[in-house]
């Protein structure tokens, strides 16, 4: 319907030259915003870019990213462009990350050339705190069952959790983006995502772990493993479906290795969190540190123990 209009709109400036030179490039499925002004994303099948203002916005974003030098990175307005999202958009992106579909790349269908930093930042913050808090709650619930376990707030786990999650959500996309850029240098037909889009994909893909971590409070082992596996499958599937259009042009070996490494890192993160924050507690009371010090008199014992002192 609007495809013809969009073609007419795009053939306005640079796309005309681009189409003339390399007619095959319009079929590439990437959101490449190189200075050539390649905005032929409308060629995607079933593309829902019907509205013209979307096209204008993608042009505006393209200009913003092209002329990155003018609103310099030291100005506030530069960073404000990364928080230009509404509540409904953030919720839509979260829903899109929860339900990955093959053939629907997150970057293409949800981000649409407008990556934001709000989602990744606050999802990582929430996940870090939820991990530390539910890990501590597990210890509290275990102490209720078995009074010999020593409960403590374990505040250092907040630091560990936040460092881990933030490093994962920012350094791994950096490495991935660097790797993809290098492969693009080798094979020019490959597509490319910008660094922010990669960070966005990773950030939103971590959202599914938040309810999973809360579910891990329930001390039923098979439920914990099942929910962990489900969350990992959804999250990794989202990543793979997003990366597939980009690495498809690369050799089979490189694409396979890249996707397996991505999934493996994700699995490592999930299992590391499970084992570190939800340590399975020993069934017998622990021996060493509580016999050296005199047992704390009242605070640790449950109230149901009979107090022989009471009259």
């Amino acid at each position: 319907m609007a495809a013809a209009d969009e073609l007419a709109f795009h053939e306005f400036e640079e796309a005309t030259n681009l189409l003339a030179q390399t007619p095959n490039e319009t079929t590439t499925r990437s959101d490449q915003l190189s200075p050539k002004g390649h905005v032929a994303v409308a060629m995607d099948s079933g593309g829902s870019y019907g509205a013209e203002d979307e096209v204008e916005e993608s042009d505006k974003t393209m200009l913003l990213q092209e002329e990155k030098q003018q609103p310099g990175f030291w100005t506030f307005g530069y960073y404000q462009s990364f928080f230009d999202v509404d509540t409904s958009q953030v919720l839509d992106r979260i829903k899109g990350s929860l339900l990955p579909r093959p053939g629907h790349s997150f970057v293409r269908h949800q981000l649409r050339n407008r990556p934001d930093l709000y989602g990744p930042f606050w999802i990582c913050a929430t996940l870090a705190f939820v991990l530390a808090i539910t890990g501590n709650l597990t210890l509290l619930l275990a102490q209720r069952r078995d009074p010999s376990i020593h409960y403590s707030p374990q505040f250092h786990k907040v630091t560990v959790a936040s460092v881990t999650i933030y490093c994962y959500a920012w350094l791994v996309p950096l490495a991935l983006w660097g790797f993809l850029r290098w492969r693009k240098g080798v094979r020019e037909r490959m597509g490319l995502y910008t660094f922010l889009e990669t960070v966005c994909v990773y950030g939103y893909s971590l959202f599914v772990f938040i309810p999973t971590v809360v579910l891990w409070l329930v001390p039923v082992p098979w439920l914990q493993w099942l929910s962990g596996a489900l969350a990992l499958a959804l999250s990794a599937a989202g990543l793979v479906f997003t990366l597939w259009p980009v690495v498809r042009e690369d050799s089979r070996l490189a694409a396979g290795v890249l996707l397996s490494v991505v999934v493996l890192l994700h699995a490592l993160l999930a299992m590391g969190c499970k084992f570190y924050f939800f340590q399975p507690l020993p069934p017998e009371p622990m021996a060493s540190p509580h016999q050296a010090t005199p047992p704390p008199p009242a605070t640790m014992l449950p109230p149901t123990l009979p107090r022989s002192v009471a009259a």
Partner: protein
Amino acid sequence: MAEAVESPGDPETTTSRPLMRDLKAVGKKFMHVLYPRKSNTLLRDWDLWGPLILCVTLALMLQRGSVDSEKDGGPQFAEVFVIVWFGAVTITLNSKLLGGNISFFQSLCVLGYCILPLTMAMLVCRLVLLAEPGPINFMVRLFVVIIMFAWSIVASTAFLADSQPPNRKALAVYPVFLFYFVISWMILTFTPQ
């Protein structure tokens, strides 16, 4: 006002009147937090003394007494300080980046003053912990912390919500919720050694 009549060499009048004025301003803002109405006092005459007093009080009360096991305990003084101030700065930056029209220090002022209900909850919790421990003890503390947490959120939202464009209010309020939730968690899990 009174400053013009001060005699230059008199230490009592040159320091105590501005001090009383500032203390009164801080007290007035405390009352505004406790009875949140839509008013501009907190925003217009912002100051950071109140948040500093509250933060130091909270950090002192949350600090664990003995250092028997450093790794396993509650937050240290510096950790509470960092969480409160770093959290407030992050939320302020977030709301400014989302397009809010509140100034940096006004937002810090509001967030800092709205810790007052949680500081009161900490006081109550410490008093309750002096009594006999048990599930009733825990339920009382939980109830008090939940009420004060809701009060903090309502108070800060009353001041901050208007400064955001309407389709982004939830995006700006969620970090405030997370911030006060973490502080409430620290208060609730405080165990005296």
